[in-house]
């Protein structure tokens, strides 16, 4: 036994041997508490252990050990996920990828970079910005979330209206499969490799198909110019009409964000206030980027559109500092709710843009009926809504009420032809809500795919799909019986 740790558990000893140091494994209860949940804090469960592999080979050996010994396991990055995808509901061994955090290579000529999964999102942009390049997906947590986690969740961000979400920027993945085998897909970052698009399937699979150990991403050249407009509306309906008008005018903004009255109250009470008036119903943040010669025309058009929709005040950012302040105010919007509420629950519905006024009024109704305030922060351009249900967990029954209100918001999104999650993932939080958008056959079609990769279902089990789904299980058995 090379690694000396105090345990009678042969599995923990064996896992410690693989990572090779007592400092790279946690297994005492007091150390494990930090890992009992992620950004979704309403459910907690202790893992069996947390291990910190240094490279792909170690990940592979850890996975193989877990698989051979029927130990449930899952991968974790920075733990910023908002749907509970990294919560060890089965007492998993957590394979933390935070020690695998190197930027392995950057190839400017071919516009790609290779990173390890624990590499922090924003670090990539920071390390290539001197050459005029950046990495496009920008979730609000980008200063601390990892690119490995972004791949698992297919993370979005404020700028995905024009530039797409994580999946549109992934060119290659090295993956440790649930049995420990290592595969390399999208080799050399070359697109359209023959065969099924496993790259696309794995991205957003919430850590249920494999563990990503190396990622080739696309990097982009900074746009020559960008300009941001802020617009205040007395009526939320005018704000949402302005959103539609901007898009209908043939403008593709880089970002088109909206906050409602309650959200404004929150961000103005928090760390980055910018002086939004408190009596307006909606603020829009609209960013256009591209060739400098074309920006002014588009900005003028946007100003015109807003004026036609009874805007109270609209103007472009005076300088980069002001633009930065506006964005800091918006990007810290979720956390800002802490300034006006003891607790809050973030939801992540998506709707066809044209349904915005209807959905907002129905969410208002949910708020009234539940007696809980709901703030709305959303990526209005692509219809991705983040209702923030404000509550106080110390008051008995409020957590349950908040969960129910959040779920009701998702039902509204599904009802109008939308979906239950745009960028936060299903995790454990929304797995029952999967039934709002998929029927049994469609869920089976997905679990069938999972079974090809995750044959023993030891990797991140109990996520993403409705549980136990009696109906689903029975149909599955019937199908299996019919096939024999």
């Amino acid at each position, binding site marked *: 036994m090379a690694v000396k740790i105090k345990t009678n558990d042969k599995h923990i000893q064996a896992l410690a041997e693989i990572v090779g140091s007592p400092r790279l494994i946690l297994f005492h209860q007091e150390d494990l508490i930090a890992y009992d949940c992620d950004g979704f804090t309403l459910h907690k469960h202790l893992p069996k252990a947390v291990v910190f592999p240094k490279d792909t080979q170690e990940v592979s050996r850890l996975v193989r050990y877990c698989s051979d010994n029927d130990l449930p396991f899952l991968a974790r990055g920075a733990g910023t996920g908002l749907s509970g995808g990294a919560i060890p509901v089965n007492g998993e061994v957590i394979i933390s990828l935070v020690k695998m955090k190197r930027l392995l290579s950057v190839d400017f*000529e071919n516009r790609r970079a290779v990173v390890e999964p624990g590499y922090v999102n924003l670090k990539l942009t920071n390390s290539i910005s001197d050459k005029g390049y950046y990495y496009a997906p920008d979730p609000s947590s980008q200063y601390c979330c990892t690119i490995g986690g972004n791949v698992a969740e297919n993370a979005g961000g404020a700028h995905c209206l024009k530039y797409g979400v994580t999946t549109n920027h992934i060119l290659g993945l090295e993956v440790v499969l649930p049995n420990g085998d290592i595969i390399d897909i999208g080799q050399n970052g070359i697109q359209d490799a023959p065969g099924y*698009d*496993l790259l696309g399937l794995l991205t957003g699979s919430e850590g249920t198909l494999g563990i990503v150990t190396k990622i080739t991403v696309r990097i982009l050249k*900074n746009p020559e110019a960008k300009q941001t407009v802020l617009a205040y509306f007395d009526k939320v309906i005018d704000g949402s009409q302005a959103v539609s008008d901007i898009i209908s005018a043939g403008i593709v903004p880089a970002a088109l964000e909206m906050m409602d009255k309650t959200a404004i109250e929150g961000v103005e009470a928090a760390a980055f206030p910018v002086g939004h008036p408190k009596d307006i119903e909606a603020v829009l943040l609209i960013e256009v980027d591209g060739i400098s010669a*074309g920006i002014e025309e588009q900005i003028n058009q946007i100003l015109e559109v807003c004026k036609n929709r009874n805007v109270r005040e609209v103007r472009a950012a005076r300088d980069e500092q002001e633009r930065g302040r506006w964005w800091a105010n918006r990007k810290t919007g979720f956390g800002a709710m802490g300034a006006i509420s003891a607790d809050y629950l973030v939801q992540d519905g998506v709707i066809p843009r044209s349904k915005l006024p209807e959905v907002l009024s129905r969410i208002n109704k949910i708020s009234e009926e539940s007696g809980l305030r709901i703030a709305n922060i959303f990526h209005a351009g692509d219809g991705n809504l983040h209702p923030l249900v404000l509550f106080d967990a110390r008051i008995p029954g409020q957590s349950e009420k908040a969960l129910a209100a959040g779920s009701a918001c998702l039902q509204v999104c599904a009802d109008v032809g939308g979906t239950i999650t745009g960028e936060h993932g299903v995790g454990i939080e929304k797995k029952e809500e999967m039934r709002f958008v998929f029927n049994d056959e469609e869920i089976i079609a997905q679990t069938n795919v999972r*079974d090809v990769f995750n044959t023993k279902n030891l990797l991140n089990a109990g996520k993403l799909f409705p549980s136990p789904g009696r109906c689903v299980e029975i149909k599955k058995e019937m199908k299996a019986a019919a096939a024999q």
Partner: protein
Amino acid sequence: MIEATNQWSIKDILPEDQILIEELLHPLGNNGRVTVFPKTEEEIANVLRYANDTGEKVTVMAGGTKRGYGGLTETADILLSLANYQGIVEHTVGDMTVTVKAGTPFKELAAYLAQHSQKISLDPAWPEYATIGGVIAANDSGPKRLGYGSARDVVIGLRMIYPDGTIIRAGGRTVKNVAGYDMNKLFIGAMGTLGVISEVTLKLRPLAKFESLVLLTFPETNSEQVRTFATSLLDSMLEPVSMELLSPSLSERLIGKNGYTLAIAFEDVESSVHYQEEFIKKNQPVHTDLAILQQQDARGFWEQFYKIGPSGAETTVNKETEASLKIGVVNMDVIKVIQESQTLKDSHNLVAEAHGGLGHGLCQVNLKGASEDVVSAIQQLRDSAVQLGGYAVVKHLPFTLRSKVDVWGGKPSHFFLMQGIKEKVDPNGVLNEKRFVGGI
């Protein structure tokens, strides 16, 4: 006119006028002993269910442009044609999304959307014949992929009919969606081996307010100059939607200039387009020839461009063998692929026309000549692509030659996963047998 007596079952499923028995075998293969033309999703599902129950094999087609793309069986039992399964299901102008039946020709769809100043940002070959379902199933893309991405970037929802007749919806109607696995990705480019695409939902873009095309022709001898210029352009603030390198032979045919030509397209507000044109004029490399086509002229060029490769729907019989390859390499290696293609004219006595995107690394090489020369050239091009770390897929080749070159170029190391998926979805192997990678 139905003579065969063993077709009674399929006749129970579809009216007689939707069934055709084709006596002649098409030289590109992917035939069916019987061709069926369902008009509804239910009819498609019934045909598949019938085949799944009786053990018959089904091959799927619509416009027929990709008939020569893969497939090692000359004749399946049923050729399922989606040619009569057309039309727009829903177009929400304000949401900029459209749902359309798979058999709708791409050009027809584009013309309809243009009335609303919108477009699908894909530029596939043969848009008048190619259907949206076929474009998605074969993951076809064109030079403007540089600016707009490919099928995987624009398809937001699919309605699939599984081989057992079950309808499976993937994705949805919103532009952002991470509910469950991204099943759309599995079906895009799967060559119809996992299910029949019934409806496609796409996100749309506004039609460009202005477009232009800068054609920059370099002397044939100087490829280093191409590389230097392309690299500097990609590193500039310019936002070309295409940066396609044309081989001298292709350049000669399209614009009458014998030299390596860069086709650099801009689509934006007018001031931005002119600004970018000016940038290129100012930085024009020595000894190059520059032409700028705007608006209608630019569109005219692209219309011709999309017809340069062979089409499986072509009815005129060609004595020479035609082939087309899709080659994927790291971006700048495109220059090497295009150069090598140019040498095939002399080394293999072939007509070889090639183009490739310096921003995305995908090339297409079209070959015409004696069949043994075509086969040998395919092998040579593939060897080179593999040496560069890339791949070569044969997009078009007569049926008899397809067994001589592996259309997909071997199996990837993780092939077992693909095979596992196929077996789960299509356990009886009903759909498009041996059409895809590794005999899937």
